[in-house]
């Protein structure tokens, strides 16, 4: 495209229009202002809200630890907390395991054109209604669902795959899978091929190469992928509600119930804060796990 700029008289940078610095500030500012006012501030306000009190169903600014005390001192809160943690860990583990062979195949053993088509098929559903995808699993997983019908024809089942942990986990995997696969694939593709060649030349078997060369080299990405799966499952509301039957509840279900029963937003905020703190701790732990330990040369 022939630009008009090329025809303009040559003026040293900075003489024309405003200064470089001011121009930069004007470009940097919109995102910063938006995210500080409408992302950071709401989160800070949520922290503040945990110290407010509710009187006659009305929120009142206050500075009390009563909400924290109420939430943290109940036994069932910790039951739910522990369960949510375990569910999310399970989901992260299963998704990582299920996804790894696929990521491996996509990064090492497939021509680029075919890889693009596969990726397209794997990733587009990620942007389509998660709600409806989860709902659709019902068609397959219920006692009269398609899978049990098929198994019944073979004289098996029916297996209970719905309204329990199995159903919830299917939902979590549906949620996390594309992201995990993508991150795993990228990190596997970045493993130095020479290392793999070298391992082969030194007589290292296939499986051993995978476990002793490829996985350690791709560790950062693999841990990162599992962490994202953990974060997504930990905060998910839909799978445990629609596929798990919301009993027993998870933290997000408890939080939503607390919001809706009366207007006990301060207590819901405490739950949210506990979740944020947990995710931060797990995120930092994952970073240490990924980058710390033995420094693997790369």
């Amino acid at each position, binding site marked *: *495209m022939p630009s008009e700029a090329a025809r303009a008289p040559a003026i040293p940078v900075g003489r024309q229009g405003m200064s470089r610095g001011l121009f930069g500030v004007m470009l940097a500012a919109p995102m910063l202002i938006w995210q500080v006012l409408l992302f950071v501030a*709401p989160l800070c306000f949520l922290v503040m809200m945990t110290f407010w009190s509710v009187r006659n169903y009305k929120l009142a600014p206050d500075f009390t630890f009563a909400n924290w005390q109420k939430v943290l001192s109940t036994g069932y809160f910790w039951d739910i907390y522990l369960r949510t943690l375990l569910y999310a860990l399970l989901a992260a583990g299963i998704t990582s395991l299920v996804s790894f062979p696929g990521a491996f195949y996509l990064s090492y053993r497939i021509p680029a054109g075919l890889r693009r088509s596969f990726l397209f098929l794997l990733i*587009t559903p990620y942007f389509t209604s998660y709600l409806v995808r989860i709902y659709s699993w019902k068609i397959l997983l219920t006692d009269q669902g398609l899978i049990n019908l098929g198994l019944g024809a073979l004289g098996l089942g029916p297996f209970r795959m719905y309204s329990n942990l199995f159903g919830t986990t299917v939902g979590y995997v549906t949620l996390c899978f594309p992201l995990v696969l993508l991150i795993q694939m990228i990190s596997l593709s970045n493993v130095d091929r020479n290392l793999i060649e070298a391992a082969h030349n030194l007589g290292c078997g296939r499986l051993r190469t995978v476990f002793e060369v490829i996985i350690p080299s791709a560790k950062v990405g693999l841990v990162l992928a599992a962490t994202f799966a953990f974060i997504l499952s930990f905060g998910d509301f839909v799978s445990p509600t629609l596929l798990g039957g919301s009993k027993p509840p998870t933290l997000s279900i408890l939080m939503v119930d607390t919001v809706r029963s009366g207007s006990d937003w301060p207590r819901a905020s405490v739950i949210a804060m506990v979740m944020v703190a947990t995710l931060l701790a797990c995120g930092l732990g994952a970073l240490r796990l990924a980058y710390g330990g033995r420094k693997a040369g790369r």
Partner: protein
Amino acid sequence: MANRLIGWALLGYLALILVFILAPIVSSFVFSFNAGRFPSLPWAGFSTQWYAAVLSDSAIRSGLINSLIVAACTSVIATALGFTAAYTDYRYTFTGKSIYMAVAMLPPNVPVMILGLAMLVYQSELSLSGALYSVIIAHVVYCAPFAMALIRLRLSQMDADLEAAAWNLGASQGQAIRHVIIPFTLPSILAALFLTMAVSFDEFAMAWFVSGFQETLPVRILVLLQREVSPRVNAIGSIVFLVTIVLAAVALFLSSGRRRDEAAPVPASSQRDAL
């Protein structure tokens, strides 16, 4: 031989993965045309009654319209913010830049339920909640980082000297952006528009918290799902699938189709002419 066997096994595995991902979508689509009330076999015959029921339902129609308005506004604002932030990252170094980038990138890493609650308490304190713009505000917060990431990726492939050359030829910074940066990043800008539209069109958690009576379509679906099991959901779902798949596919095509061209070692200058 063993190698080929492993190859076939892995290919089969990938096929299983695809089945896992596509099965719910396909079954929902198939049963949206089922005449019976229950999504089970035997198939009760072909019917478009659920689509008719969905399209004549005024709550669903207004939800769809709300969703479209929110998605359109969100995508434009989020992409504009994403562009400025991506360009800031590409062009400038300044103290506190890592904090700037962290703030810009963080929102999608916070669970949407928590973002939703935070939005609700904050917006209602400021009397901002319960309207369509409340949803747009929340969605822009969530979507802008996606737009930024896409545009940043594209900018990182750009020859940094191109813009400087434009300056030396007398272009102001604004002109350089308009005539050099924007043409180069145009595919990713368009991709960001479509992708953020798809994300917003599908987001229900934050919208659920802040929308009040201005329900968007996913919120309507959620309410429907919590109340009853209706084959209408399959019909809405199929419509939603179609809309979001088209949006996301366009975004993917735009953002990946370009990169292929660059795989060939083409001089930067002729690359720009090709645009």
